[in-house]
């Protein structure tokens, strides 16, 4: 599946199927600091992502202010 990552904006190919939590763990991204959006919709940690899904992993942590 195509995975869009932010800060900086980049794309990575990851083989599916994989659950949302497994994807975050594989990329070593803390669950509490990210949301996952599949084909435009928010999905929970146990959602299964297929190989043909377009996935955005959105960081939710912001800095100093």
């Amino acid at each position: 599946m195509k995975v869009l990552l932010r800060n900086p904006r980049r794309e990575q190919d990851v083989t599916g199927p994989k659950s949302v939590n497994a994807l975050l763990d594989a990329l070593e991204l803390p669950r509490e600091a990210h949301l996952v959006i599949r084909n435009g919709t928010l999905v929970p940690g146990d959602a299964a992502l297929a190989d043909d899904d377009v996935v955005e992993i959105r960081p939710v942590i912001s800095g100093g202010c």
Partner: protein
Amino acid sequence: MVASASKCRVCKEPAIIDLPRHNANFCAEHFLELCRRQVVKAIEKFDMLSKDDNILVAVSGGKDSLAVWDILVDLGYQADGLYIGLGIGDYSDVSGEYAKSFASERGLNLITIDLRAEYGYDIPTAAKATRRVPCSACGTSKRHLFDKAALDGGYTVLVTGHNLDDEAAVLFGNTLRWDVEYLSRQLPVLPARNGFPKKVKPLIRLTEREMAAWCIVRGIDYLVDECPMAVGNKHLAYKAALNAIEQQSSGAKASFYLNFLDNMAPLLAGRSAAATDELGTCTSCGAPTTSDLCAFCRTAEKARAHEPVPVELVLSRGRRRR
């Protein structure tokens, strides 16, 4: 394709988000309801706002400030926004666009101030001129301008979008230093006092992840990219540490901060020297201060005397130093 297994705790429809600290999953509708309930709970418990208040929201174009503005309007409060153009390169240009479109799409009133145009300096230049970290010069500028706009505009209360993660991170830093002065002032409501408006933080019961989700579900476009000047600051390191603990122990952040408010803050009440200090007035702008010139006027004076510094220059200097 296998559908998501998790169901909404309330209606059993497919969930869009898992909230381990509530040990539950929620559909869009019931997630929004939970967020509203948490905000109402904070407002009522700490006597933050009333429907008669004339509210000014400090808006940055990021998720938290747009979410708190959206939630307050949704709950029936009367709230305008204030955006300050800080002159932090593209980041400021883009964040201003998000703030303006949010307001115009909803017919809300957004006041804007441009630091460079109206005060003759910007944050990168102020950081360089005062030899302080950018967030420090930035905080001084924003606090002063938000206070001033709230008082000048006849607003009864100033709202900021600080969330549970922000407050827990500040608490973590204050605790690591056992800074009793700061700990005693770390409250979600600061009452109005001479020259300062009442300030409140309605999002203290909601995490950053929940606020980003609020924006996504509500279709609010916000600036996802981080302020370039935040890179490497301690605040981010504290948040990462707390999130590592949260992953092992769901709800740890909420109990760290909310139990501080319940159990520790009362013991520290009255310990703040700053709250009882006699304040004079700034000889230049009239704001309350302990010295001749207030911190804002001192920063502005130094920054105006300095040639403009592009954001990239301040960044590369910061990176080399680390």
